[in-house]
């Protein structure tokens, strides 16, 4: 490349133009944008199902949706949100975009497979949407046998195949990330100089490649049982439906860590930036990601305490479940210690960091209630469980995703959004979320079961509060969508490093060029070297 060309080289967004150049792109950044658009659509679809659920639950009578329709709506809310939004959310968008840049690579190791993973996602998503249009699915997102394999008359086979196919997009992303981290790091980018976001995505990828194949084969067995009579879980021929749950949760419990680990990675980046400090206990935070990924595979039976699983096995699973709290607490304490005596700046990323830490803490601690076998028998299948996992997945996962999206938006789009609006939106989401889900802890503890469209009148006040909160939450999300889209059109141009952050991604232009770097960077400094970080600037300097 000639020196004179350097300044004129267009960003990845504009080189080249045209729809075909996007749909056939091998650029990890463009694929990240394709994923971002797709998951936003699915977030909206899943959100509409949530709105229908909350509308139904305003009154104790089942008057808005019939029981059958309600079953379909909560199933589709779960399937869409988990498989088509949360699992790809951070890894396939922010991870895809920034992981190669953070380690100084020009792209992921297998760019074509990266594009293939998006197409597989689209095919799986289309199949699942087809199941919705053909009349929906009513098994719950867990597809429990024997209901799913024998009894249900809805489109289980189509939806299961959709989930099966989408699983491969997740596998391919994980596999690409692992090879990239091992083989594509720039000179000087040692393992312990990698940003914690990369560590978190690496740990997530391990879960993806080790867990996802198991659920793929499991839902395939359901499809085979329904379509080809190859019964494996059918009790009429001597099958054990609980085996399905073992195989299902072997993936689906670690899948929770697919949703939360990348979020923890984002928060590690953000917390160092808003504190303007080296992260406290870097290697502990890094290894705790791996520890969560590994221990996460040993605890799946805590979803099955009341299924007829052996009580002894339940005890073992219950005790190991408590161990997951250790690496999670290591992270939380280290983030807090990072902020302690840090020069905390009141930028919008701080709001998401604090929101995440508060909500994740509540979600994590209530998880200990549910992991204790005796208490779980009381709380199992109540709204307590619903509140708990929403605190983790939405309070943790979505807050971190939105925080990361706000933090990296200037780099991804080259535009700044309105800081005051972002702060208002983050508060709306935080308060709306708590108003939605905190009452569910109480009503669940009082005994309200999940998955029913009607309930005793004494629970109404909590459900009205919850629906009111969901309205605020929805308004918050809508607001974010509006000002972010507006910023693309009318937002001021973003400088190279608006937050004064460290890391290779902030040393290249916003938005980056197709090959990320003009020349391969040579890394000489530790991660989060905030002593030598530039000051934040929202202005574009003349030479950029």
């Amino acid at each position, binding site marked *: 490349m000639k020196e004179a060309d350097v300044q004129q080289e267009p960003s990845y967004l504009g080189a080249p133009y045209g729809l075909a150049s996007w749909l056939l792109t091998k650029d990890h950044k463009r694929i990240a944008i394709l994923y971002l658009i797709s998951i936003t659509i699915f977030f909206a679809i899943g959100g509409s199902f949530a709105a229908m659920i909350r509308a139904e639950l305003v009154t104790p009578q089942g008057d808005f949706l019939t029981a059958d329709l309600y079953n379909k709506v909560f199933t589709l809310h779960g399937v869409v949100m988990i498989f088509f939004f949360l699992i790809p959310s951070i890894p396939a968008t922010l991870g895809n975009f920034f992981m190669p840049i953070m380690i100084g690579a020009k792209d992921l190791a297998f760019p074509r497979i990266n594009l293939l993973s998006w197409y597989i996602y689209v095919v799986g998503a289309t199949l699942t949407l087809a199941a919705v249009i053909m009349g929906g699915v009513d098994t719950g997102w867990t597809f429990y046998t024997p209901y799913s394999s024998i009894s249900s008359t809805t489109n289980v086979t189509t939806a299961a195949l959709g989930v099966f196919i989408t699983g491969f997009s997740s596998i391919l992303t994980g596999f690409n990330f692992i090879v990239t981290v091992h083989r594509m790091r720039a000179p000087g980018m040692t393992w312990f100089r990698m940003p914690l976001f990369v560590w978190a995505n690496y740990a997530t990828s391990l879960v993806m490649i*080790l867990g996802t194949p198991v659920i793929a084969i499991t839902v395939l067995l359901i499809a085979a049982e329904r379509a080809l009579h190859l019964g494996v879980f059918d009790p009429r021929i001597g099958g054990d439906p609980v085996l399905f749950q073992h195989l299902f949760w072997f993936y689906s419990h670690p899948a929770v860590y697919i949703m939360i680990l990348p979020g923890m990675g984002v928060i590690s980046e953000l917390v160092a930036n808003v504190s303007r400090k080296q992260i406290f206990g870097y290697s502990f935070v890094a290894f705790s990601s791996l520890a969560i990924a590994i221990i996460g595979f040993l605890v*799946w*039976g805590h979803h099955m305490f009341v299924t007829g699983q*052996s*009580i*002894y*096995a339940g005890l*073992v699973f219950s005790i190991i479940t408590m161990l997951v709290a250790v690496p999670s607490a290591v992270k939380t304490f280290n983030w807090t210690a990072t902020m302690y005596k840090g020069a905390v700046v009141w930028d919008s990323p701080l709001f998401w960091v604090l929101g995440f830490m508060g909500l994740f803490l509540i979600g994590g601690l209530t998880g200990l209630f549910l992991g204790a076998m005796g208490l779980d028998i009381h709380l199992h299948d109540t709204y307590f469980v619903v509140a708990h996992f929403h605190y983790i997945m939405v309070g943790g996962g979505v807050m971190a995703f939105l925080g990361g999206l706000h933090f990296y938006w200037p780099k991804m789009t080259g535009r700044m959004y309105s800081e005051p609006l972002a702060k208002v939106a983050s508060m709306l989401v935080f308060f709306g979320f708590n108003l939605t889900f905190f009452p569910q802890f109480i009503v669940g503890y009082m005994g309200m079961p999940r998955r029913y469209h009607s309930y005793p009148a004494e629970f109404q006040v909590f459900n009205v509060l919850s629906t009111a909160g969901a309205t605020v939450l929805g308004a918050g999300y809508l607001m974010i969508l509006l000002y972010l889209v507006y910023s693309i059109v009318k937002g001021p141009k973003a400088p190279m490093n608006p937050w004064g952050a460290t890391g290779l991604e902030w040393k290249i232009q916003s938005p980056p060029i197709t090959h990320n770097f003009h020349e391969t960077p040579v890394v000489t400094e530790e991660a989060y070297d905030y002593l030598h970080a530039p000051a934040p600037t929202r202005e574009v300097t003349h030479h950029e």
Partner: protein
Amino acid sequence: MSSGHHVPTIGMCVRVWLALLVLTGFTIFIASQDLGVLNTPVALLVAITKATLVIVFFMGVKWNTPLTKTVAVSGFVWLLILFFMGMNDYLTRGWLGVAGR
């Protein structure tokens, strides 16, 4: 790691091939004998030996990086987690009663 990638010799390939055929014959023969509870462990031992031969020699793990060796082993180790924790349920059902039942 360098460009001097290991090229397997034909003699090595033939020896591994013969060993695999002999082991296949052995596993068929041993299955026709009644060893009581030992039939399955012996069959599995032979299968594991055969798989190891293929992985180490035909798939070239012997001459590969420590990372590849780790990856090659990790899948099987992870599978053991599924087997052990899963069978931990099936083998212990009925060990402990349920309170109130």
